[in-house]
């Protein structure tokens, strides 16, 4: 390994990505900075709400039930909808503009999209703070006597959806520009991924309209009570699982090339197939969200269980492509050791650190996701703390860290400012992961023991098992650790967004594009081995879950409210 040559890009040099961002028209930069700033505001609000919620679940804070659910609603709405979708709109537009090389097409449409999304953000935050707390799924059943809250809550999401459609239309028009100009006769793999992702955003907006328009109509007296909201929410919710994961993998592709110069060794065609696979697998895998419905037939349950196994195929395929491309390139430069080749990556670059730890979090999160979505376990676990215990590995560990990594690379290119304290930012992802491991381990154990998911006071008058408060206290400690670490990162990214200071040094990258040994001369096993280890871990934890649950004196009844 010591003989491995890892040339660093000369200080001050720009990658194709950052050079193209730096060259964007001023109007595009202003729009993108507005979207990135709004996304960070949503993340900060959601982080604060989540932190307070975790402290309340740990017993460190006490709220009246309405206040507790209001905070939980603000947390979910801010993070799950506005952080994840404002940042996706921003990333779609900035990557499309960089792909085009000449800025955004249909710029007024992109501005209209931003205005609609920000209006939705304002409406959703306002009604969540002042109306009946509906939690992030906006279930009308929680406010049958308050149509005003239902209507405004639904209106917020409809505005967000309309804004996403406008952003997607601008994004599609932008990635098509090189072909319209005759500069290209096909998409790059990133261009095709952006094209497909934008289409998927539009479909998700259709799903959101299908779920929330009835609530608006009912509140106006123009339609019946939306009794089917739970089912319609499941369809939207299914899309909302895939969209940010597809965005994450796309960002990993982009950042890998920026940080190492390495593109997929499997070719653009394979990458396009993997990105298309996200969309191919979306509808067939949607049935597992219905496992909580008590009336679901056994045949549908069996088919849904089988199809759910495909749910992570595109993500794991993309992961394997990226890791094998990196490993093969490193070995072509003389790297050795099963995992030793990774030491040559630019780990002192905060974007690399965030991306690397995001991959670790993904492996843990997928393992427990598969435990949850099995037909026999879903009814037992879905209303327990198992769910927040595992999904924060995705929401915070994978998605948030990946999107923050993208901002660390892109934001300095917007205004020529400096990345805030890279040495501090580089240390945060490990801290985030440590907090998540504590939060997740305690939360998943609590879920196996039956701690309910959305009940703030789980003492049950002193008759609850003695382990419950201990586990929830550990949940609070873990949440505190990762919330503080993410808050430091968010602060650093905001400082970077506002920076006008010329960078004193360039965050390090390496150039692994060509090696003397030739790509493929030495086998690259880390990617496939990681996937094999993941499958083994899923198998083991599923057995453990069945053993634990069968040892508990409980009877499950389908709840039907969804995740």
């Amino acid at each position, binding site marked *: 390994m010591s003989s491995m040559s890892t040339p660093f890009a000369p200080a001050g040099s720009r990658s194709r990505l950052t050079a193209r961002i730096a060259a964007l028209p001023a109007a595009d930069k202003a729009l993108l900075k507005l979207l990135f700033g709004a996304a960070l505001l949503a993340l900060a609000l959601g982080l604060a709400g989540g932190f307070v919620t975790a402290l309340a679940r740990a017993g460190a804070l006490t709220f009246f039930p309405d206040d507790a659910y209001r905070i939980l609603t603000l947390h979910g709405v801010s993070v799950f909808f506005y952080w994840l979708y404002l940042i996706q709109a921003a990333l779609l537009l900035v990557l499309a503009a960089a792909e085009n090389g000449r800025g955004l097409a249909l710029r007024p449409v992109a501005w209209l999209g931003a205005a609609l999304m920000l209006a939705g953000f304002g409406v959703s935050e306002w009604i969540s703070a002042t109306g009946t707390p509906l939690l992030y799924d906006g279930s009308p059943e929680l406010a049958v006597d308050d149509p005003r809250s239902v209507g405004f809550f639904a209106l917020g999401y409809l505005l967000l959806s309309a804004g996403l459609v406008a952003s997607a239309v601008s994004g*599609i028009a932008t990635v*098509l520009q090189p*072909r*319209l100009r*005759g500069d290209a*006769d*096909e*998409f790059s793999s990133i261009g*095709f991924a952006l*094209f*497909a992702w934008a*289409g998927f955003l*539009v*479909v998700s907006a*259709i*799903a959101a309209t*299908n*779920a929330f328009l009835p609530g608006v109509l009912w509140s106006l007296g123009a339609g019946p009570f939306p009794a*089917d909201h739970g*089912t*319609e929410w499941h*369809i*939207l919710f299914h*899309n909302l699982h895939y969209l940010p994961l597809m965005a994450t993998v796309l960002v990993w592709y982009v950042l890998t090339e920026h940080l190492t110069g390495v593109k997929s060794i499997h070719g653009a*065609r394979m990458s*396009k*197939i993997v990105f*298309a696979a996200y*969309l*191919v697998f*979306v*509808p*067939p895998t*949607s049935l597992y969200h*219905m496992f909580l419905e008590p009336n679901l*037939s056994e045949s*549908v349950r069996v088919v849904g269980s089988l199809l759910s196994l495909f749910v992570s195929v595109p993500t794991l395929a993309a992961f394997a492509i990226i890791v094998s491309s990196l490993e093969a390139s490193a070995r072509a430069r003389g790297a050795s050791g099963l995992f030793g080749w990774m030491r040559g990556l630019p780990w002192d670059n905060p974007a690399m650190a965030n991306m690397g730890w995001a991959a670790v979090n993904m492996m843990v999160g997928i393992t427990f996701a598969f435990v949850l979505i099995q037909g026999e376990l879903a009814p037992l676990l879905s209303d327990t703390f198992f769910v927040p215990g595992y999904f924060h590995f995705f929401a915070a560990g994978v998605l948030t860290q990946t999107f923050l990594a993208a901002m660390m690379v892109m934001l300095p290119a917007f205004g020529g400012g400096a990345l805030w304290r890279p040495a501090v930012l580089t240390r945060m992802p490990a801290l985030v992961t440590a907090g998540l491991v504590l939060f997740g381990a305690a939360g998943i154990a609590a879920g196996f023991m039956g701690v309910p998911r959305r009940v703030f006071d789980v003492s049950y008058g002193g008759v609850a098992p003695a382990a419950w408060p201990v586990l929830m206290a550990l949940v609070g400690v873990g949440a505190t650790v990762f919330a503080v670490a993410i808050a430091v990162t968010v602060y650093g990214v905001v400082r970077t967004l506002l920076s006008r200071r010329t960078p004193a040094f360039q965050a390090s990258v390496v150039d692994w594009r060509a090696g003397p040994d030739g790509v493929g001369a030495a086998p690259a096993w880390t990617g496939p081995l990681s996937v094999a280890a993941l499958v083994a871990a899923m198998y083991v934890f599923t057995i453990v879950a069945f053993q634990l649950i069968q040892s508990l004196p409980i009877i499950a009844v389908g709840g039907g409210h969804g995740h």
Partner: protein
Amino acid sequence: MKNDELWLTLTIAAVWAVLAAVYAFVPSLGMPGYVRVWGGGAVLFLLLAGLLTAIGRKARQG
């Protein structure tokens, strides 16, 4: 393979259309929302495939 994008987009539209049809023609599934969403998605990706075809044709015509 210049037509990768076209056949991939058409594959997406086809899969979504089949799923929409299943939900539409098996009423016992009781999920009309799936018909609207997957059906709407199938139409959208069909339109995007048409857009790719039109742009390809325009490019070939110079």
